[in-house]
């Protein structure tokens, strides 16, 4: 028995996440606790070889100063002291300059760049035409009979970012759903509304130079989603986003 065709249109949408590249800054309690743990570890420890060597050399220096230079300074060989080694290591560390945690894209607030907010998740938003409105949405495509919803979402991603995108999709099941009815003018018996099923994927490739066919795209964090998405849509999307 063939089932009667349902009046809902199906869409598959992809929530593409760029995972954080650097660690988030520590909270106040976390910093205090880390300092305390370091202190306790120091108190419970014994002297290491390097520290013993340092202590002995300090003793020798002190004795030499007190006894006014009358034991073995004849040979004249240059002995490397532990203190000198420490200073050398410190200088070497100072000479190394790491990449900054706050990038240029952060400072300019360039929301199309992937280098922004390296300690947070970034997700892709594109501008799509729904009905007669241009809206900011997660990339979505209409479901064609004969494919699973996951492949619909993959197709949606491919239309906006090209075929060479490497993303790990997390499973076959949808993560969330947004159901809406068409406005009364468009609504008919067979065409009540649409259901958008969301899928999640992690972005694997770090550069998207060949991609970005569509001009209007943004990479935003979870807090900035509110600037672009409608309230009902935002509520459903926020349910399956961890931050």
């Amino acid at each position, binding site marked *: 028995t063939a089932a009667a065709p*349902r009046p809902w249109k199906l869409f598959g949408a992809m929530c593409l996440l760029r995972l954080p590249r*650097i660690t988030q800054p520590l909270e106040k*309690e976390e910093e205090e606790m880390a300092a305390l743990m370091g202190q306790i570890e120091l108190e419970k420890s014994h*002297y290491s070889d390097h520290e013993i060597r340092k202590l002995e050399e300090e003793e020798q220096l002190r004795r030499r100063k007190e006894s006014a230079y009358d034991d073995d300074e004849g040979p004249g060989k240059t002995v490397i002291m532990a203190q000198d080694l420490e200073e050398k290591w410190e200088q070497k560390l100072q000479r190394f300059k790491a990449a900054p945690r706050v990038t240029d894209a952060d400072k300019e607030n360039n929301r199309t760049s992937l280098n922004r907010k390296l300690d947070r998740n970034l997700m892709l938003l594109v501008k799509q035409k729904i009905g007669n409105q241009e809206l900011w949405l997660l990339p979505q495509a209409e479901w064609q009979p004969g494919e699973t919803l996951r492949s619909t979402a993959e197709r949606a991603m491919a239309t906006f970012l090209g075929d060479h995108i490497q993303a790990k999709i997390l499973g076959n099941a949808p993560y969330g759903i947004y159901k809406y009815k068409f406005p009364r003018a468009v609504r008919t018996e067979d065409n009540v509304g649409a259901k958008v099923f969301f899928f999640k994927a992690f972005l694997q490739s770090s550069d998207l130079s060949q991609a970005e066919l569509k001009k209007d795209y943004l990479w935003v964090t979870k807090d900035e989603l509110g600037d672009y998405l409608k309230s009902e849509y935002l509520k459903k999307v926020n*349910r399956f986003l961890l931050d």
Partner: protein
Amino acid sequence: FFLSSWLPQTVPCRGSHWQSSLLALRASLPVRAQPKKKKKVDVKREQAQKDRMKKKIRKLEKAAPEMIPIEDFITPLKYSDSKRVRSLPPLSFEETERRVLLMKRWCLFKQKQDKAEKAAIQTLVEAQQEALKELRLESEELYQAAIRRDEGLFPFEREGPNYTPPLPGYDPPEGKCIDITKVYTQ
């Protein structure tokens, strides 16, 4: 006159004295000068040797295998020297108080963090269940495709975040790592 084994006249060259003529085949099998040792004695001796070896192997296998020492659990003796004990002033009352209060605050912080994580996971699962329910209402076939296990998902590997982003064009210093871990075989 000179002795020479070299005869002036041409003589048909014979490879070995068993070959009576060049064209005839070997008349008899080449036999060693002394009579051959009897085969039985050799076989017995070899069998006895093999049995002795097998007995030794069985004895070794029966003995319990020696335990592999875990190097991390054995403190080398040079670190139990009393000279190595650190000399620090004892903790003041304020310091111990501060530590205890900090531990309590930490406890609360971690509890809140854990609760928040669990609540987030709960909403995640609920949202997914809702989506699957709606999908089932739509079409059974799509629902079955959605709840099928994704074989390519695990093993899932990912490198964790570092403290600073990678420096473009960084040339790490050269060096060779020589592994000196002791490998024990049982």
